[in-house]
């Protein structure tokens, strides 16, 4: 192998030098130019032999060679490897086992419960379901946060360049650095637990002060009145603030407990979202909804005991990444992934937002259109093509999540964050007996799932572009 490479290099450099020097004189200052000419000797040769028509093929050759050998060949080889067994890395030594690798993966009693599968099937399906759950949560979160950030940094704010750079900065960091940073912050005795404990203690101390209850009630009442008054005029931003206050008051007052039901914590946000939505689309009952919500919230406010709400017990530090059955490891995975990738998608969306002609907004302003309506009728439709691209890119990207998981949780606790790429990696490359066939079969199945998703996406994209 290396002999061939050396011979080729010698031929290229030696022969090329002779050829170039025979055709043209080079001043000794022209060494860089000579080097570039030397690199291009094969292209020159192609031009000499086949005329100008041969040049593009010679130019494409190195790129296509690498694509062919390191992308297309492995793609096809994957199928072959997935039908072979054993631990040999000599392709010809590998015994043909037929569909046994796939059989092991599909050896399940019920497919929806990985526990009923064989060992290989258990690993694969756990990874697959976790990855699907991750993608289902991650893609919407990522897109919404990226869009929100792009909208904020697209505003006329002080230090715009700095803010854009700040949100993009995590994209530049390597996964190991990101994992070490968040490991340190999320440690049981780390900064996050310390900050939570500190603020809980501060609030408890404040709640112990005389008259705290009354002061906070008055503050909340005033805030509710002001925000509801602004929301009644149809301002979406004020409506959002009002919704937040309403949800808080609803959760604290816990009105459903009076009729013996739980779940006030969730009902509040749902009602608040409904009100905000009504204001956003300028529903004809919007004013009515805001007014009734404000009456309800004032009534509820009278029942809230604020010194009880803000008095916390000693906050126990949580082992964020390690505690099983809490959902926290999964949450922080989504968070850190969003943290580290959001900037890229934000930039793409920002480019989309800036491509929207400004006169559309000016025309809307002339007609007295409210900002919320302008957002839903101008910004959102026009940024939709970009948003679809972001959707596709983030879907393919989050399907392949490996670095963050492997470095932050290692797939744990138990198998809670065990993703499909980690399954492939561990089956093939760690452990004493590598199961290349098994891993290749997993990759093929994963490719099928990604292909299905991509085609659905492309279909949706096609529909989108008709607008």
């Amino acid at each position, binding site marked *: 192998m*290396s002999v061939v490479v050396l011979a080729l290099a010698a031929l290229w450099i030696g022969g090329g030098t002779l050829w170039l020097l025979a055709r043209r004189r080079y001043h000794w200052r022209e060494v860089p130019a000579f080097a570039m000419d030397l690199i*291009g000797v094969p*292209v020159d040769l192609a*031009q000499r032999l086949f005329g*100008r028509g041969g040049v*593009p093929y010679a*130019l*494409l050759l*190195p*790129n296509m060679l*690498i*694509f062919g*050998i390191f*992308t*297309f*060949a*492995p793609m096809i*080889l*994957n199928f072959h490897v997935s039908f072979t067994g054993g631990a040999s*890395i000599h392709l010809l030594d590998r015994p043909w086992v037929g569909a046994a690798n796939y059989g092991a993966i599909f050896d399940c009693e019920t497919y929806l419960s990985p526990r009923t599968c064989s060992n290989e099937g258990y690993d694969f399906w756990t990874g697959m379901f976790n990855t699907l759950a991750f993608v289902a949560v991650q893609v919407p979160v990522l897109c919404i946060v990226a869009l929100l950030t792009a909208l*904020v940094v697209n*505003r006329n*704010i002080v230090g715009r360049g700095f803010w854009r*750079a*700040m*949100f993009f*900065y*995590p994209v*530049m*960091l*390597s996964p*190991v*650095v990101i994992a*070490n*940073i968040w490991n*340190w912050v999320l*440690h049981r005795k780390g*900064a996050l637990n*310390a900050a939570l404990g500190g603020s809980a203690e501060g609030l408890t101390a404040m709640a112990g002060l005389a008259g705290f209850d009354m002061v906070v009630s008055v503050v909340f009442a005033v805030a509710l009145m002001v925000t509801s008054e*602004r929301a009644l005029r149809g301002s979406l*931003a004020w409506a*959002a*603030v009002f919704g937040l206050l309403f949800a808080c008051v609803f959760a604290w007052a816990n009105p459903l407990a009076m009729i013996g039901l739980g779940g006030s914590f969730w009902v509040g946000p749902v009602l608040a979202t409904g009100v905000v939505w009504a204001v956003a689309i300028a529903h004809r009952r919007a004013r009515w909804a805001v007014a009734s919500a404000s009456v309800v919230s004032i009534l509820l406010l009278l029942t809230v005991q604020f010194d009880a709400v803000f008095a916390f017990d000693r906050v126990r530090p949580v082992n964020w990444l390690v505690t099983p059955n809490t959902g926290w490891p999964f949450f922080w995975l989504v968070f850190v992934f969003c*943290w580290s990738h959001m900037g890229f998608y934000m*930039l*793409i969306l920002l*480019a989309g937002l800036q491509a929207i002609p400004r006169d559309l907004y000016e025309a809307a302003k002339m007609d007295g259109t409210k900002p919320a309506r302008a957002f839903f009728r101008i910004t959102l439709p026009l940024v939709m093509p970009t948003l679809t*691209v972001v959707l596709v890119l983030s879907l*393919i990207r989050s399907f*392949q999540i*490996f670095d963050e998981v492997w470095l932050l949780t290692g797939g744990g606790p138990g198998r809670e964050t065990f993703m499909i*790429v980690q399954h*492939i*990696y561990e089956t093939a*490359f760690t452990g004493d007996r590598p199961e*290349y066939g098994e891993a*290749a079969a997993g*990759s093929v199945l994963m*490719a099928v799932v*990604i292909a299905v998703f991509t085609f659905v996406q492309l279909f949706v994209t096609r529909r989108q572009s008709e607008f």
Partner: protein
Amino acid sequence: MGVATFLTRTKGTADRARRFGIADLLAYGYLLLGVLVILMPVAWTFLSSLKGERAIDGFDTRLLPMAQVEAEVEGQGVKPVWTWTAPDGTTRDVVKAGPTRRETDVVALDDPDTVLRVPRTTLAPNERIRVATENYLDPILGRNGQDNFAFFTYLLNSVFVTVMATLITLLINAMAAFALSKYKFRGRLTFTILIIATLLIPSSIILVSLFFVVWSFGIFGSLWGVIIPAAATPTGVFLLRQYMLTIPDELLDAARMDAASEWRIFWRIVLPLSLPALSVLAILSVIWRWNDFLWPLIVLISDPAQHTLQIGLTAFSGEFDSDFHYILAMTVVSLVPITLVFVWLQRFITTGIATTGLK
């Protein structure tokens, strides 16, 4: 003019000025949240990396690197110094002369022979700010038994991979883009479709068989095994092709009149003219290669002499799970180069990616 109007005015002429409304307030609130979530963890890691081992192990959450003063006491060796507040309010520097109990034996620094018995609650550590440079110097220089993190080897490997891969990527992608944008030839559409197809093949589904290919080429375990497979990028080809389409053909024809060879046209005319697109691709390639993780992990993990900075740091973090002070310092070390590049080229990177990186 009312007070509220005065306070919420923003700059601009009277008819164009907007008032500082709730939307602006929410926007600034969001940016503040962004600072808290994005910059704080990085800053916190940096500040923590300056703390001594004792502060790190004790999970000292103060911002500044405080370390307890130590003093040499005759017959007792070097011991941490405490400040004792006497009942009358005077303070003295003392060291502990016995085990810590409710009533602890201490001796004052200025009077080492008298043993005082004082309540534990009156003792406070005597601290001052001290930057723990040993966190950085020990692993980098291999002192104090920290010879597992061959920093300069890793740095050299990382730089080699990044520079080589970027140069090769730029050259061969520009060649392919030149062919696809400036020549009409049979199979152009086929080649274009093939390159689009590679865009749709995620790298993680060909891991296993790529390993077989790289192994049979004999470059597994060497840096070339990381450089070559990723050198051809569909993104790069398309980015450059779109840009080269804007270069007028007349320039090329004029050069052909002067009997320039096609290769000379490529590197004398087309390459310099597509410098903006080339620099965007160069930046992208540097980010990709510097931060690359999964494939180098597979190819290079078995030979520590070939580790890149990322792989070396992973191995180091895994090996010394308890030595957080070294891990944090090395995290900062590998974070600094990319941060400097970013601060230096920040405007260029963000506008470059936003305008050309997508299409």
